Every structure is written in structure tokens, then in C-alpha cells.
């Protein structure tokens, strides 16, 4: 297309060249414009800056999963948005500012339209889908170095790379969750300890603390490794201390401040998993006797782990782990209302807390998924729909 042709078109259109900037873009469809290989992704705040800084975005999801987009530390649901308009994407097309800023800009700019679309991907920040992480690691929990099972080649094991390709979450969210569930790396693979083995390790440590009369807030790493190193691998001793304590350095020596609540909680789980239901007061007695000297048990240590039934006579307690419940919001509520028809906010909160989106409150979730009523002067929540 020549200047003469462009000017002829302007004359036919009765446009005054004097009112126009001298540069014109002649738009033509590029050779692959209609191939549909390009698509548009609408960016949430922060993502544009990340891309410009050279960081990657990854789309994750297997064939049977809804795709998500992950930045380094966040996860987004992806949804197609349709528009009734046609969107053309044009490389090298200049804005009036750019043309005015550069007086030497070409008179005729031949621009190729790289592609066009009437839809684009929309993003919505979502909770990372981490339940699968625990599920994968629970396929083959680590039972200790003497376990014959671990020597079999068919053991299900995952490296960080494996997890990154299988879990619909950002790398940071995955690494954070691995720490939260006390996973450890054994020979390059992420493993979760089998509960009985974990309790065995914990028991070694608590017995040693007792026999040495150490303060619970100053457990020396070096002595633990010396005394227990003949019973268990050193990495496992250190791992259990890290899982159940806070590491710090004092005068060049490494110590651990033990988490009383976490230890009491683990021992409660050990007791509760042996039966469906316990008499509450009997359980509390046995539990207190089972924890290390100097530790005090409290029912609120068991949030998200056990459920107390105050309506039965005698009162009972049973194991209910939040990580065993469904990840999807509606399914989670269905499951909870299937277990108990009416819940107080205090009782249900530990079992729905993890569902809250970034700025969402438990109250907002309850408003959306439950119906409230008053029972004996207390506000309770039940299902919005009949539960079969």
C-alpha cells in the first residue's frame, strides 16, 4: 500500500489530512493470524510486573482437572470470558503519544495483525489445591530405615519436580505446605512419616527429656543425637525435633523449644485412633497421664482433630481430622452436616477455616453455605439443603 493509495482513501472518506497525524498504520492480516495459536490472558494486579521482571507463569492441571495458573507464589482459577466484540492483536502498533514523541516515525507503518479472538482467559485468585499433595505422600509413608517395604522398587516417591508437575499450586505454596505437614526429604524424595513411626521417634525424644530432666524449652540437639543416634537415623531425630519444636541457637549450641500443644495433640491422636468414640472424661484422664511431665492437656489443643459431643450422656469425643474432609467448599459442608446436623460456630470453625479465601471470614462462608437458627438460646448452623 503506497502513500498515494492511502491519500486517495482519505479523500474518498472526506477526511482532512491536516487534522491527522502524518503517520498511518496499514493493517494487514499476518500469515498465521487465523491459525488460533495465540490467545489472550487477562492479568491480575502484580502478574504483569512479574512477567516484565522475567518471571514465569505456569498453567497446571491434568486432563481431568480444571486448569489453574500459578505464579511463583499464587494460584488462580482460569475461566474463558466471551466478548461480543472482535479483539485484534497487533505488534508494533504505535499510540499517538509514541508517534508524537518520535518525530522521525515512518510515514507508512505496515503492521501485521498477529491474531484475533472473541474471547480471553480470565483469572481469579483461588486457594491452592493442596489436598492432592498429602494424598500423594500418603501413598507410601516412610516407616523407618528398617522397613522392608521401602526397599521395594515400586514404592511411590516424589521429588520436588514431580510435585510441581502434579500439584495445582505455586511453588511457594507447595513448599510451604510441605513444611506445614512436616514432610521431610529422604534421599531426594519428599516423604511423610507413617504415624506410628513418628510417635516412636517422638517417644524417644520425650523419654530422653524426662530422664535428663531438661527444660522443655531447652532441648539440646547434640545430646539427642549422641544418645539416640544408635536407635534411629540422625536425620530422623533432627526431623522430629524440627517438627515438634522451634530451633534456636544459644552460645553456639543448637537447642529446641518444644511445642507443648503439638505434642499433646499428637498423643491425643494416638489414643483416639484406636476406637470410634471415647467417654470424654475417661479420655481426658488417660490423655493427661500420657503426655510428658510438665505438659498440660487442654481440649482446645484438639481443634480440627477431634470432635466433642456435648449432647450425649456421657459426653464423648471422637477423631475427626480436617485433612480427611473434602477440599471443595460445598462438598466440605455436605460432609460436615452429614456428620452432625447442627453445629455451633465455635465447633465448626476449625473445620472450615482453611476454606476461607484471602479476605473472606468464616462468617461469610457460613452465610453462603449454611442456614442459621437458634437452639436452646444458642445460634446453630445447619445445611441449606436436605442431606440424604
Amino acid at each position: 500500500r503506497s502513500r498515494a493509495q492511502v491519500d486517495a482513501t482519505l479523500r474518498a472518506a472526506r477526511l482532512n489530512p491536516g487534522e491527522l497525524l502524518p503517520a498511518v498504520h496499514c493493517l494487514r492480516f499476518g500469515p498465521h493470524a487465523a491459525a488460533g495459536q495465540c490467545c489472550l490472558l487477562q492479568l491480575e494486579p502484580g502478574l504483569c510486573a512479574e512477567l516484565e521482571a522475567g518471571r514465569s507463569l505456569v498453567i497446571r492441571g491434568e486432563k481431568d482437572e480444571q486448569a489453574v495458573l500459578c505464579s511463583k507464589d499464587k494460584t488462580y482459577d482460569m475461566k474463558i470470558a466471551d466478548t461480543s466484540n472482535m479483539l485484534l492483536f497487533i505488534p508494533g502498533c504505535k499510540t499517538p503519544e509514541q508517534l508524537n514523541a518520535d518525530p522521525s516515525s515512518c510515514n507508512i507503518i505496515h503492521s501485521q495483525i498477529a491474531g484475533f479472538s472473541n474471547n480471553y482467559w480470565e483469572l481469579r485468585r483461588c486457594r491452592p489445591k493442596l489436598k492432592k499433595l498429602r494424598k500423594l505422600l500418603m501413598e507410601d509413608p516412610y516407616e523407618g530405615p528398617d522397613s522392608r517395604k521401602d526397599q521395594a522398587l515400586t514404592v511411590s516417591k516424589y521429588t520436588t519436580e514431580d510435585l510441581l508437575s502434579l500439584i495445582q499450586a505455586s511453588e511457594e505454596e507447595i513448599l510451604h505446605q510441605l513444611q506445614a505437614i512436616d514432610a521431610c526429604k529422604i534421599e531426594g524424595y519428599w516423604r511423610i512419616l507413617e504415624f506410628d513411626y513418628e510417635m516412636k521417634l517422638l517417644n524417644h525424644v520425650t523419654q530422653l527429656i524426662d530422664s535428663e530432666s531438661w527444660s522443655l524449652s531447652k532441648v539440646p540437639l547434640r545430646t539427642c543425637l549422641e544418645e539416640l543416634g544408635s536407635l534411629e537415623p540422625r536425620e530422623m531425630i533432627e526431623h522430629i525435633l524440627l517438627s515438634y519444636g522451634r530451633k534456636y541457637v544459644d552460645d553456639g549450641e543448637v537447642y529446641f523449644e518444644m511445642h507443648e500443644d503439638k505434642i499433646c495433640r499428637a498423643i491425643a491422636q494416638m489414643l483416639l485412633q484406636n476406637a470410634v468414640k471415647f467417654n470424654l472424661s475417661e479420655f481426658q484422664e488417660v490423655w493427661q497421664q500420657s503426655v510428658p511431665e510438665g505438659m498440660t492437656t487442654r481440649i482446645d489443643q484438639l481443634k480440627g482433630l477431634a470432635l466433642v459431643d456435648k449432647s450425649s450422656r456421657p459426653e464423648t469425643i471422637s477423631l475427626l481430622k480436617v485433612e480427611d474432609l473434602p477440599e471443595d467448599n460445598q462438598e466440605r459442608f455436605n460432609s460436615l452436616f452429614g456428620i452432625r446436623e447442627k453445629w455451633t460456630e465455635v465447633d465448626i470453625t476449625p473445620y472450615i477455616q482453611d476454606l476461607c479465601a484471602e479476605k473472606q471470614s468464616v462468617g461469610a462462608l457460613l452465610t453462603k453455605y449454611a442456614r442459621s437458627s437458634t437452639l436452646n438460646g444458642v445460634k446453630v448452623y445447619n445445611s441449606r439443603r436436605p442431606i440424604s
Partner: protein
Amino acid sequence: SGSAGALAQWVLVELQGEVEPRQSGSLAGSLLGDLHYTCEGVPVLIVGHHILYGKVVQLEKPFAVLVKEGAAPQDSPGEPHGHYTVTALIKTKLLFKTRPKPIITHVPKKV
């Protein structure tokens, strides 16, 4: 996945309706039209026998242009799975919302 080096900046042109080739056949290589700007910065697009007036919009939510790696075009529109490269960013769009003004090239004279 991400990109190395500075990302190209492209521009989005938003038009009403659909784009169809003048003669039947592929769009590849065919002309869309001339894009001018008035001295005040108003984009003017001449497409066929129409003049479209638009405006420059700075996008609140910029777009990334993703190119799917692999030879074949997308098998189904809703299939995001696969490897993508961010080719460019789009922070500006030229929005043409006004009704096209037809260009009348020949006015018959009254006899």
C-alpha cells in the same frame, strides 16, 4: 512459561462484529484497513467503505499474549493444557465502539 529479555508491547484493537475475508478464502495476507490518528489523538480506522472513530484506552488489567507451543492449532477452544510462551504484553487498546460511518463514494447527480 516465561520469557527471557524484554517483552514486546503490542496493542489491542477492539471492533464490533466479526471479521470476514472480502473474497472467500483465508484471511492471511489480506488488508484490514488504514489506521490514522487525529491531531488530538483520536484513532480513526478506515475499513472497506466504513470510517470508525475510536478511543485509546489504557487497560486496567493488561493482557499477556500466549502462544501455544506445538504445531497444531488448539484442538478445542476450552483446552488450556499444554506449554505456552508469553510472547507479548498488551497495555493499550484502541476501542472502536461507534457505529461505522459508511463512505459514500458516488453521489448521483440529479438530472
